[in-house]
């Protein structure tokens, strides 16, 4: 558990972000699970002015600084489910998102066509970083093997999984399309993933 480990800092900072790590972690969990706008507003009012200060220093320009703040906080809203309190504090997570966006913004400004993006260098928002303890599915099976396993799923589950993972649709879109409740889509997804994991384990 790394949350709350005091940073070695020579001068005592009156308002180190780490101080409220637990509080902010719980808000992030609420945003992830309930899409709580109230919890997000708390996170925002704490971090956005701090990000603004960082961004002004880094970008040297009001408009770019605000773009950096907006993009960072928007990612926090969208990807709160990827935050893992066991891997670090909310301030570190949010800073690393800002650092990645800044990296890509600066390269765009310089008009560089280097084929490298921040997410490759620092995989902050990769879906698979969400679950550190679990070996990700892609570590264990090849695409081809996965194809065979897909075929073994019950049709109802397979349709949902294909729509989400292959066609890239959201769960809500799938629900609308199949005219079934969102809850059903979620449970089919969960059952299918569990089944895939079981099959992969048998496969070994």
């Amino acid at each position: 558990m790394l949350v709350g480990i005091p940073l070695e800092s020579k001068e005592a900072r009156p308002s180190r972000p780490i101080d409220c790590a637990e509080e902010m972690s719980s808000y992030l969990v609420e945003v992830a699970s309930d899409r709580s706008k109230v919890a997000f507003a708390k996170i925002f009012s704490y971090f956005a002015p701090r990000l603004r200060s960082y961004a002004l220093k880094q970008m040297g320009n009001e408009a770019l600084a605000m773009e950096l703040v907006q993009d960072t906080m928007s990612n926090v809203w969208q990807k709160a489910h990827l935050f893992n309190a066991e891997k670090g504090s909310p301030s570190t997570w949010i800073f690393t998102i800002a650092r990645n966006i800044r990296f890509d913004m600066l390269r765009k400004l310089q008009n560089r066509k280097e084929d490298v993006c921040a997410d490759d260098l620092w995989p902050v928002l990769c879906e698979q970083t969400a679950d550190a303890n679990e070996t990700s599915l892609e570590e264990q099976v090849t695409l081809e093997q996965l194809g065979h396993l897909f075929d073994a799923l019950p049709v109802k589950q397979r349709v949902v999984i294909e729509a989400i993972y292959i066609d890239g649709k959201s769960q809500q879109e799938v629900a609308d399309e199949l005219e079934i409740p969102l809850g059903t889509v979620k449970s089919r997804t969960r059952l299918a993933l569990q089944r895939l994991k079981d099959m992969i384990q048998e496969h070994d």
Partner: protein
Amino acid sequence: MINFHPTSTQLQRFAEGNLPPSEALVVSAHCDMCTQCMAVVKAASEKVAAEALSKVSNDPSLDAILANIVQQPVAERPSISVPSIDTIELDGREFKVPRALRRYVRKTGNWSSLVGKLWQAPVDLGDMGMANFIYMEKGGRVPEHTHKGSEYTLVINGEFSDGIADYDSGDFISLDGEHTHAPMSDADEGCLVFSIVDKPLHFTSGLARLLNPFSHLFFK
């Protein structure tokens, strides 16, 4: 066992996001293989974050941003994605590629034989220049050379020596014009490395000097 790591300055600047992209790419790939440096970067990121977010700059326009963000719909998607290619194949062997380099496996050109037991697959990195996966078979040798620019190399699998030191899987090697070296592998398994150079190499010895006018064609 990993003996060669990025310097603490490189790791610090990597955590800050201030390392040039080519250097950052090789450092990142090293961290994928080196838990020690991964931990250093993690600790450095905590510190940098605390420092970066220690000051507050309020502005009324932040309210509008907040209002705008919470109106965005959220794409609901649980956490797996389509598998990426994580191995590189050569001569019937498969090598596992560190996470940071996986995206480039698809961009790798065909393997071609250079001199003797040396194979190269170029990776186009756009403005950043050329990177190469280089495979040295047992006894394979890169002619002695020096650099006009910098060279960052990561040993992906195997062992090699270059007259300066012996390297093993995971080692991070950062060289510039001050160094002259002649990499070669004596390992039965050979050795696969990933290498980025920002300027063509300059060969320094024997017949290899004849290669200089063409060195931009390979080991670029």
